[in-house]
């Protein structure tokens, strides 16, 4: 029997970066197949090629032994390929039911929509997922987890032979995840080929039977049985060496007054009763699931959302921050965004413009004049220190690799010489080497006296880098964990704080 979905020897380049090279993977019917790899290893690119969003440069995609080349996701869905993408893809202003059934609202353009059957059908999938939501309700009124489930329901409802799930559990609670896994097992038993992408190795070992690992766009392994492997093997394949539990020693505590301190802080975004302080030279981790309100807290601190209660103290003095400009220029605060493409960088512009944007004001003459050379003199040493690889400073940054882009989005804050830096998911979409490098850099910065707030959902990263870890859930701080670099203990404690909500 030929494989339900087979990818053979696929390569794909984007300007400035080779995303996939000679990658193969085979999804069999009746199997749950884990696709693993670090951020930037090429998982999402692979899924996008399979579903017809990107076109491969070389290689072949086959379904049931027949080569396919979907022109767009529509064709892929019609060809029997259901996908839950990593980013949310719901139409917010339409009701839940219609979102689930969006591609089956009618036979042709002028078909009337039979709402009763649409809602009935949608309800079936919502029930299956144990999601108690009226299919007539607008998606915009759902919580993040509910949206994720609706999206899964939408993919399930296609009843396709192949189902690819890209990080389906990122914002789910353990209970919701349990329900999802039950459904996936049933689908597997019914003969569906399921592809499962996740960062959470525990989940992978719980539900998957096969595994393919990608590393830097190559196959680290191709469709092997998972039960022959243990966690350490998988990790070794992912990062190319044995998992280091903690390379870095616990850093000495500094006994200095905090650079920034929040007291019973609340924001218009919904944060409540936040108490938090970061000392110069300290790396404070902020852990939480997607939708817990971490990035929102960072942005609120920078003045993008009004403060509604409590106090913010910078160097012991109460301040009110109304704009990022104020945060940067008056209080030395910076923010490395998790969303490089949308918030961190101006992809249309050059490396120089992106790395110098924070210091234009500082470097300009009194009349606001500024020469490229002045900026280059200022940011050049920093970029050089970060070992940025670019043909020239005038290269459009959109053409650089993810790791190099990330270096620039950090570099601009180094250039600005901030005293307090919030780093949000620093290792999304970058290669392992850059990641390690960034971790060193964060430590180095802290050693030089910068106060750092690190936001990440990557548990090993958190354990590796942070000094102490605050756990956030539902826009509140649920607890604090002193980081002794003991992965097992720390991660268990963190999860305990988050799941405390479940128990209650």
């Amino acid at each position, binding site marked *: 029997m030929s494989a339900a979905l087979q990818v053979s020897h696929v390569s794909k380049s984007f300007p400035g970066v080779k995303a996939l090279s000679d990658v193969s993977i085979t999804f069999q019917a009746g199997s749950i197949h884990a696709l693993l790899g670090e951020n930037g290893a090429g998982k999402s690119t692979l899924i996008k090629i399979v579903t017809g969003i990107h076109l491969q440069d070389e290689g072949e995609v086959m379904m049931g032994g027949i080569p396919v080349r979907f022109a767009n996701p529509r064709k892929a869905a019609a060809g029997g390929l259901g996908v839950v993408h990593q980013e949310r893809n719901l139409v917010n202003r339409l009701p839940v039911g219609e979102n689930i059934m969006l591609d089956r609202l009618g036979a042709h353009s002028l078909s009337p929509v039979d709402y009763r059957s649409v809602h009935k059908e949608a309800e079936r999938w919502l029930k299956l997922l144990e999601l108690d939501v009226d299919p007539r309700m607008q998606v915009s009124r759902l919580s993040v987890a509910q949206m994720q489930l609706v999206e899964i329901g939408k993919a399930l409802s296609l009843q396709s032979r192949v189902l690819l799930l890209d990080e389906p559990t990122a914002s789910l609670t353990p209970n919701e995840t349990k329900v999802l896994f039950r459904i996936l097992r049933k689908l597997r038993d019914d003969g569906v080929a399921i592809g499962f992408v996740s960062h959470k190795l525990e989940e992978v070992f719980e539900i998957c039977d096969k595994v393919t690992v990608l590393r830097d766009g190559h196959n680290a392994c191709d469709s092997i049985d998972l039960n022959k492997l243990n966690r350490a093997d998988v990790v070794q394949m992912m990062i190319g060496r044995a998992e280091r539990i903690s390379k870095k020693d616990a850093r000495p505590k500094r006994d200095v007054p905090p650079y920034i301190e929040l007291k019973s802080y609340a924001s218009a975004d919904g944060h409540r009763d936040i108490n938090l302080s970061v000392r110069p030279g300290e790396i404070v981790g902020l852990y939480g699931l997607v939708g817990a309100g971490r990035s929102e807290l960072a942005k609120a601190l920078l003045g993008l959302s009004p403060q509604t209660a409590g106090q913010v103290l910078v160097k012991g003095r109460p301040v009110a921050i109304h704009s990022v400009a104020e945060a940067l220029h008056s209080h030395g605060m910076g923010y490395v965004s998790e969303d490089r493409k949308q918030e961190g960088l101006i992809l249309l512009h050059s490396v120089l413009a992106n790395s110098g944007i924070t210091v*234009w004001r500082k470097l300009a003459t009194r009349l606001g004049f500024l020469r490229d050379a002045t900026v280059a003199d200022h940011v050049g040493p920093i970029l050089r220190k970060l070992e940025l690889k670019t043909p020239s400073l005038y290269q459009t940054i959109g053409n650089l690799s993810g790791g190099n882009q990330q270096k620039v989005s950090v570099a601009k804050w180094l250039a600005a010489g901030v005293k307090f830096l919030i780093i949000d998911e620093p290792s999304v979409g970058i290669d392992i080497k850059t990641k390690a490098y960034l971790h060193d850099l964060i430590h180095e910065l802290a050693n030089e006296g910068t106060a750092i707030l690190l936001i990440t959902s990557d548990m090993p990263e958190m354990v590796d880098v942070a000094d102490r870890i605050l756990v956030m859930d539902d826009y509140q701080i649920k607890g604090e964990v002193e980081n002794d670099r003991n992965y097992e203990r720390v991660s268990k404690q963190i999860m305990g704080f988050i799941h405390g909500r479940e128990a209650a």
Partner: protein
Amino acid sequence: MNQTVANPSIAADAPQSPQGRASALTRLLLSNEFGLAVLLLLTFLIFANTLQGFSSTFSLFTIGRQIGINTMIGLAMMAVIVTGGLDLSVGAIGACTAMFFGYLAQALGLPLVFAIPLAIVFGAGLGFINGITVVKSGVHSFIITLASMSIFFGLMIFLTKAQSFNQLPAEVPSFGKWKIGGLVSPLLVISMLMCVVLSLFYRFTTLGRSMLAAGANPKAAELSGIRTGHVITACHVLTGGLAALAGLMLTARTGAAIPSMAGQLGQDWLLPAFLAPVLGGTLLAGGRVSVVGTFLGAAFVQTMTSGLLLMRIGEFWILACLGVMLLLAVLTDKARQSLLRSKGMV
């Protein structure tokens, strides 16, 4: 390709390796501006050799003068397209400013040295109103300026009772008629100077760069410490100022400040205002400007218009020709971009 930046300060002055330089040359040859310049040159040569009178000094003078005015109108729109927005009220601002200038110079008898700057400040002020409304309301500038176009123009007509100012100081009309070297209008010179100034502005000033950054990605710019709201307001102010300048130039050209110079609600300016920057390669989505392209775009449109008129194609078909030209221009640009992308050159 991927060599580490060895010496950034050198990189700043002459960043390209020989390889990089070659690709820069190719990039120049494939750029919108270059294509437009070639097209303009060709059109011009064809018209000059086939149409009688096209290359007479009088014809060249009038074409040049009109290019000057249309360039300024195009620059005014360009300054706000940078933000990914637009300003439908440029014509209304131009007409209002011209009338305000007329009032100052004629009714109040203010010397030109005061009247001109005051008028430009007035136009910039109208732009400021647009900008602050757009930023504060968060509504797209299309709808805001659609409204302000009506309001500005309506108030102007209400206040002036649509009466022209035609007793302006003699310098004004004679400036419009002045032929430098018997051929070149000072209006063209002013616009070309403004092109130089704006090119420098977008390249060498903090504000100009911030405008580009805020236009390309307002979120990222905001999070990088740029006061996006202020910058976008500043873009509208710049638009207002440039529209005011265009209004004054048109006043010099007609020798009087007349309320109808930009048509009902100032709508006559909209076509040149969009044609020039769009033909010139300014991204409507914001974040990239081409000042030179705007000039070339305006020059191309005016050359075509004059040529078509001389060819006696039929006055009424000129409008359709301009529309087709706009369409072809954007389609060619699209094709060029995808060519570049397929060759991995962008």
